[in-house]
C-alpha cells in the first residue's frame, strides 16, 4: 500500500491552495499588523495607501458587518483590532490591491499611531499579575498531601519547555471568490473547514449556508492550521464581500512566523516522591502555560497536559494543576502532541532529578512505574491495554539495550571529548478529542454508474495519508481495486459541521464514517445481486475482487454490471453516514471520565554523541517499538512515526524561539534564524518495530491512530544528550530546560566554567 497522493507530488501535479487557477480580476490582500506587543491605537491614517496605484481598498474593524470576533472556545479574539492591540503581529487593517507587492507597499503607507502599554511576555509574570485566560484546573487522585510522609525520597524542581514554530512549508493562505446571491466560496489551507465557514459567516453577518469552504490539501499543518488558518480566510472573505471580487492572501514565511502562534512554552514546578525501590508514590505538578494574547485552543491544550501528567506511569497519588496564562505574544495554538509533550518532559525531568538524588538509574525508575493493565489514570479511566510494558520489554530484547549500554561505556572510556549517551522514552497517548462533542464525523459516498467511487469526508489531507487510508477502507468494503476510488476535496457543502482534522482522529473517525456509508451501499447492492441471481434466503452472496460470488463461486455479475443494474432499478448508489466515537464521556466538574477511545503506547531508545569540546551533538540512532494496532498502511504509519520523532527531537534540541532581550519581539522569524532539522541532523538510523496487535481492536478496522503519539519519542533526545554530558562531567547541571541547544550544552560543561 502506498501514499496515493505521492504519485502526484513527485510530478509536481498536486494542487495546493496557492496553486489554484486565479479567477479573472483577482485582487490580493496584505495585512497591517501591530508593531508593538501591547498598546492603544491612537490614530490610523490610510489616505496614502488608498492613493497608491493598484490599491482598491483598505479595511478596518469598522468595516466588519457582522461580529468582529474569531474566538472558538472563548470569545476573546478580534479579527481586526479596534482599540487595543495585544501582540506583535495582530491584524489591524487589510489592504487590497492588484498584486501582492502593491498590497504590501500599501500596508507600509498606512500611518498607524499607537500608544504603547506595558507588555507581559512570560507565563509566570502573567500569573503573578492575575492574567489568566480561564480559571485554573486540577486533576487529582489519591491524597498527595498525606502521601509525602510515606516517601523515602522527595525531590522538588522546575522545568521549562520552549515553544516551537510549526514551519509548515506551505504558509497560511486562502482565496475567496464571490458566488451567486452574495454567497462566498473560500479556498482555504485549513485543518478545520467548518470552523472557517462558521467564523466567516459570523464576521460577515450572513448565514453559514452562504459560505462554502473548499480544501484540497495542505502543505503541512501539524496543528498550526487548526485554528490559525481562520483569520486569513476570513480576511479574504471580508474583502470579497466588500469589493465583489476574488481576493487571495498568502503570508510570506516571515509574516507567518511573526503573525501566528506556536506551541505553548510552559514553566512548571514539580515535586516527586518515591520509596527506596524507585516506586513513585506521589506526584505534584503546577503547569504555567504561556497562552499568548488570546485563548485560541489554549484551554483544550492545557487540559491535555493534565490528561498526560503521568504519561506511561501509574502513580497512586497525583495533584496536577494547570494555569492558562495570558501574555502579549501571538496566541499560541495546537501543535502535534497538543500539550502532552510539555507534561511528559516535566515528569521525565522529575525522574531524572530523583535518580540523581537516589542513585537509582532513570530507566529503573521508569520501568518500575510503567502502567499495568487495569491501572487507572488520574482522570479515572482504566488502562485497558498492555502495550506500555510490552513495548518496553520488546525494545530491550529487539535492540539489545544492555549491550548498547556496554558499547557506550567502552566508547566513553576511549574518548576524551566525544561522549555517547542513551535514554529510554516511553509514551502513552490518549486518542479522542478531549471535548467529547468533537468526536463525530461524516462521509458522503457516491458509486457512479461505471463503478467508480467518489468519497467526501471532513478529513483534511495534509500529508498524513488519511485519504489513502479512507480509499483503502472503501475499496475493502466493496472489494474493488483502490484505483476505483477517489477522495474528493473537503467541502462544507458535502461534509457539514465537521470537526477539524486533529487529535490524531482523522482516519479513525472519517474512515469509520466512510465505512458505514460504503456498507449501506453494499447492502443495497447485495439485495440487487440477490434479485439478479434469483437466489434464496440460504444462499451466501458476497462481493469479492470485483465480482459477485454466490456461495463462494464467482458469478457472471461483475462489479460494474451490478452497479449499473442497481442504478437501472432506481436504487440509490449514494450514502451519507455519521460516526460518533462510542463510549466516551468526561465530567469537567469532577475531572473524571472516559475521555479516550483508547491509548496508543510505545517506547523509544535514543543514542547520541556529544562533542564536549564544542558543545555540538549528533543523534546516532533511535529504536522504536510502537503500537499501531493492525496497521492499514504500514508505510504511511512508519512515515508518521519517523516524521513525528524528528519534530520531537527538533523541539528539545535546536528549535529555539529567540525574542529580543526583555521584549516580545521574535528575532528567530525566518528559516535562516529558526533552524529545523535537515537531512544531516536526522538520526543516522531509525528502526521502527510494530508491536504485535492484540485484542481489543479499537480503531479503524483494528488499526490505531498514529499522528501525534510518536512525537513524544523525540523527548528522549534531550535525556540522551544529558546522559552523554554526564559521562563527561557527572555534576553537569544544564537545568531541565528545552531546547538543549549547542549553547546550553557548552555553557553547562566544566571546561568552559571559569
Amino acid at each position: 500500500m502506498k501514499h496515493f497522493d505521492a504519485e502526484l507530488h513527485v510530478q509536481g501535479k498536486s494542487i495546493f491552495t496557492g496553486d489554484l487557477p486565479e479567477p479573472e480580476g483577482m485582487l490580493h490582500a496584505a495585512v497591517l499588523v501591530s508593531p508593538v506587543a501591547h498598546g492603544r491605537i491612537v490614530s490610523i491614517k490610510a489616505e496614502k495607501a488608498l492613493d497608491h496605484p493598484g490599491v482598491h481598498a483598505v479595511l478596518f474593524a469598522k468595516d466588519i458587518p457582522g461580529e468582529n470576533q474569531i474566538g472558538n472556545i472563548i470569545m476573546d479574539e478580534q479579527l481586526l483590532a479596534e482599540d487595543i492591540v495585544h501582540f506583535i503581529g495582530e491584524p489591524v487593517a487589510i489592504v487590497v490591491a492588484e498584486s501582492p507587492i502593491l498590497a504590501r507597499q500599501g500596508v507600509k503607507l498606512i500611518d498607524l499611531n499607537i500608544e504603547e502599554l506595558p507588555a507581559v511576555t512570560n507565563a509566570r509574570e502573567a500569573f503573578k499579575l492575575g492574567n489568566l485566560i480561564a480559571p485554573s484546573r486540577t486533576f487529582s487522585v489519591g491524597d498527595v498531601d498525606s502521601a509525602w510522609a510515606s516517601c523515602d525520597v522527595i525531590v522538588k524542581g522546575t522545568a521549562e519547555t520552549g515553544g516551537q514554530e510549526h514551519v509548515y512549508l506551505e504558509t497560511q493562505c486562502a482565496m475567496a471568490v464571490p458566488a451567486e446571491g452574495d454567497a462566498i466560496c473560500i479556498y482555504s489551507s485549513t485543518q478545520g473547514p467548518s470552523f472557517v465557514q462558521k467564523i466567516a459567516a459570523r464576521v460577515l453577518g450572513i448565514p453559514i449556508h452562504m459560505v462554502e469552504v473548499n480544501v484540497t490539501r495542505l502543505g503541512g499543518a501539524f496543528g498550526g492550521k487548526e485554528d490559525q488558518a481562520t483569520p486569513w480566510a476570513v480576511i479574504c472573505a471580508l474583502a470579497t464581500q466588500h469589493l465583489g471580487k476574488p481576493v487571495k492572501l498568502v503570508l510570506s514565511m516571515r509574516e507567518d512566523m511573526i503573525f501566528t502562534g506556536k506551541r505553548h512554552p510552559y514553566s512548571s514546578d514539580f515535586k516527586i516522591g518515591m520509596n527506596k525501590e524507585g516506586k513513585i508514590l506521589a506526584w505534584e505538578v503546577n503547569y504555567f502555560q504561556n497562552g499568548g494574547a488570546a485563548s485560541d485552543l489554549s484551554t483544550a491544550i492545557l487540559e491535555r497536559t493534565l490528561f498526560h501528567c503521568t504519561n506511561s506511569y501509574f502513580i497512586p497519588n497525583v495533584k496536577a494543576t494547570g494555569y492558562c496564562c495570558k501574555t502579549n505574544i501571538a496566541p499560541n495554538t495546537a501543535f502535534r502532541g497538543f500539550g502532552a509533550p510539555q507534561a511528559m518532559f516535566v515528569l521525565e525531568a522529575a525522574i531524572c532529578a530523583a535518580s540523581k538524588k537516589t542513585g537509582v538509574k532513570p530507566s529503573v525508575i521508569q520501568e518500575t512505574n510503567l502502567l499495568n493493565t487495569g491501572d487507572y489514570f488520574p482522570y479515572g479511566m482504566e488502562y485497558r491495554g498492555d502495550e506500555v510494558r510490552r513495548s518496553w520489554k520488546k525494545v530491550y530484547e529487539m535492540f539489545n539495550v544492555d549491550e548498547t549500554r556496554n558499547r557506550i561505556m567502552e566508547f566513553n572510556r576511549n574518548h576524551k571529548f566525544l561522549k555517547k549517551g542513551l535514554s529510554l522514552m516511553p509514551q502513552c497517548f490518549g486518542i479522542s478529542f478531549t471535548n467529547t462533542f468533537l468526536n463525530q464525523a461524516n462521509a458522503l459516498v457516491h458509486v457512479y454508474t461505471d463503478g467508480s467511487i467518489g468519497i467526501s469526508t471532513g478529513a483534511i489531507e495534509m500529508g498524513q495519508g488519511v485519504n489513502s487510508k479512507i480509499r483503502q477502507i472503501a475499496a475493502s468494503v466493496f472489494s474493488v481495486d483502490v484505483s476505483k476510488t477517489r477522495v474528493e476535496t473537503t467541502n462544507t457543502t458535502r461534509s457539514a459541521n465537521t470537526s477539524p482534522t486533529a487529535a490524531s482522529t482523522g482516519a479513525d473517525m472519517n474512515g469509520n464514517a466512510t465505512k458505514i456509508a460504503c456498507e449501506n451501499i453494499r447492502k443495497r447492492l447485495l439485495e440487487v445481486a440477490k434479485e439478479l441471481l434469483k437466489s434464496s434466503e440460504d444462499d451466501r452472496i458476497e462481493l469479492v475482487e470485483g465480482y459477485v460470488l454466490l456461495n463462494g463461486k464467482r458469478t457472471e455479475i461483475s462489479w460494474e454490471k451490478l452497479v449499473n443494474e442497481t442504478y437501472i432499478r432506481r436504487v440509490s448508489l449514494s450514502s451519507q453516514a455519521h460516526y460518533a466515537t462510542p463510549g466516551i464521556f468526561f465530567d469537567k466538574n469532577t475531572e473524571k471520565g472516559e475521555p479516550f477511545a483508547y491509548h496508543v503506547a510505545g517506547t523509544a531508545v535514543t543514542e547520541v554523541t556529544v562533542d564536549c569540546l564544542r558543545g555540538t551533538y549528533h543523534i546516532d540512532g533511535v529504536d522504536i517499538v510502537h503500537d499501531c494496532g493492525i496497521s492499514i498502511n504500514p508505510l504511511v504509519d512508519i512515515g508518521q512515526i519517523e516524521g513525528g520523532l524528528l519534530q520531537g527531537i527538533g523541539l528539545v534540541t535546536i528549535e529555539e524561539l529567540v525574542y529580543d532581550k526583555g521584549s516580545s519581539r521574535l528575532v528567530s522569524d525566518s528559516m535562516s534564524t529558526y533552524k529545523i532539522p535537515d537531512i544531516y541532523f536526522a538520526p543516522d538510523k531509525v528502526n521502527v518495530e510494530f508491536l504485535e496487535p492484540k485484542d481489543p481492536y479499537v480503531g479503524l478496522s483494528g488499526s490505531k491512530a498514529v499522528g501525534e503519539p510518536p512525537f513524544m519519542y523525540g523527548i528522549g533526545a534531550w535525556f540522551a544528550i544529558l546522559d552523554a554530558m554526564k559521562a563527561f562531567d557527572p555534576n553537569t547541571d544544564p537545568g531541565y530546560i528545552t531546547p538543549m541547544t549547542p549553547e546550553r550544552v557548552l555553557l553547562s560543561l566544566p571546561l568552559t566554567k571559569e
Partner: protein
Amino acid sequence: MESMHLTYIYCPYERCEPYMIGFFLNNKKIQSDRSSGTLVLDFIREQTSLTGTKEGCREGDCGACMVLLGRPVKNGIIYNAVNSCLLTLGEIQGCHVVTIEGLNRSDGLTPIQRAFFDRVASQCGFCTPGMIISITGFFLNTAELSMEAGIEALSGNICRCTGYQSIKRAIQDLCEVFSGDELRNTSLPEERVALLVKLHFLPDYFLEVPRNLKDFEPYCLETQQSSLDKGVLVAGGTDLYIQKAEELRYKKLVFLSNRPEMNFIHVKDKHCHIGATVTIEQIRRSDVIRGLIPSLFKTLGLVSSTPIRNRATLGGNIINASPIGDMTIIFLALGASVVLNNGTKQRRVPLEKFFLGYKKLDIKGTEILDSLFFPIPNPGDRFNFEKVAKRRYLDIASVNSAILFREEEGIIREIRISAGGVAPVPMLLRRTCEYLSEKKLHKQVIDKAAEIAAIEVSPISDVRGSAQYKTVLLKQFIYAHLMSKKGLL
C-alpha cells in the same frame, strides 16, 4: 506595473544594444518582457501555469522552489539545482531552466520519482518537487553514487513531514539500481544527458535543448571597466536577493557571474589566484585547491548548501562583508589579499585591512573586486577550520575560526588565526597570534592563548547566541585548533 526600459538586459559596457531576455523553460522558448531583476520563482509562478515550483521561505533555506539551471558549454549543457528564489531573469539569458514539470515523462514516473513514490518519501508533497529536482541535478553531475553524495545533494532541501528516513531509503534504492560505471563513463555533459534520457531519468526533449539554445544571444563579454558603475553589481546575489529582492526588481542590474575573465583558479609565483566570480562549489571541487589544502573540500561542504554553493561567488561573499562569512574567515587565515580594479588601476589590499567596520569596506569609487590571492601554504603547514551553528549544515555560524601555522621542532611559526561572529568585522586575532608566535606548544600556552583570544574580541548577543557563549566558543576553537591532530596539510 513593469517599466518597459527595464525589460532588457543591458550590456555592462554599453557596447551593444540592450536585448530582451530569452531562455528555455522546460521545452518552451521564452522571450520575457519582465525586468531582469525579476526572480525566476516569481516569473514561474506569476507568468506560467507551472505550479510545481513552490514558494517556501524565499531565502534559500527550504529548497521548495528548486529548479535546474542549465548553462550551455562546449560539450553540451551543465545543469545544477539552484534556488529559484535567489535567481533572477538577468542571470538566465540563453540558459535552460527546468521545473518539475519539465522532468515528467509521458510514459510514467522517472526512476527518481518512482523511488520517492515507492518509499513514501513524500507526505504533504510541498517540498517534494524541489527534492526531485535536487536529486536529478545530482545524477546530472555526480561521478559517484553513494548515500553520502546523495545526501549532500539534498543539503538545501528541508522536509518537515518525513523525518528524512524514507528519503534516505529512496536514495539508497537509486544507488543500488544504477551502476556507478555508467556514470563514470559519461563525464561530458552531453553524454550524461544522453545516458539519463536512455535510462528515463529525463524526458527525450533534453536531447534537443543544446541545439535550441543556439538561437539565443550570448552575453556581451567585452571587457571594459568604465560603465560598471551604471547599475547594481550582482555576483551571484544569493545573499543580496534575501536582503532586498523587491527593491532590486526594478533596478538596473549588472550581472558579473558569466564573465569568464573573472572566473579562474591558478597558481602563479607561489601564490594561488582566484577570480571574484568563481563559485564556492568551484573552489571546493578545484584540483588546484585540493592540491594545496586537501581538507578544504570537506570544510567548504559546511558552507551553505549545494545549490547555493553552485551560485554564490567568492567575490560576492567577501563584498557582502558579513562578520561571519565562512569564506572570509578561511581566506583571512590563509593570508589572502584582494585585488581591486577601477578600470585603469589595480590596488591590492590585505584581507585583514579590507574590512573597516560593520559592512564597511576599503573600496573606492568605481573599484570592483577582481580577484583574491594567497601565498601557497608550505608542506607541513597546519590548517584547520572550526564552525559551530545550531545546525551543522546550511546554517550561519555562531562563531567560526580558521588557523594556519607551522610547527618547527615544537615551536610555532607564522601563525594566523581568524575568527568570525565575534566583532563587527571578520577578525584576524592579532594579539593571540603574537602571543603564540615562537612559543612551544603545550597546555599552559594554549590556555593563555585562549584567554587572550577571549579578551581580544567583542561579540554581541543575538539570535546566533549570547555574547558569553560566543566568547567561550572561540576559546574552545583555540583548543580545537591547537590540539587537533587533523588539519595537517
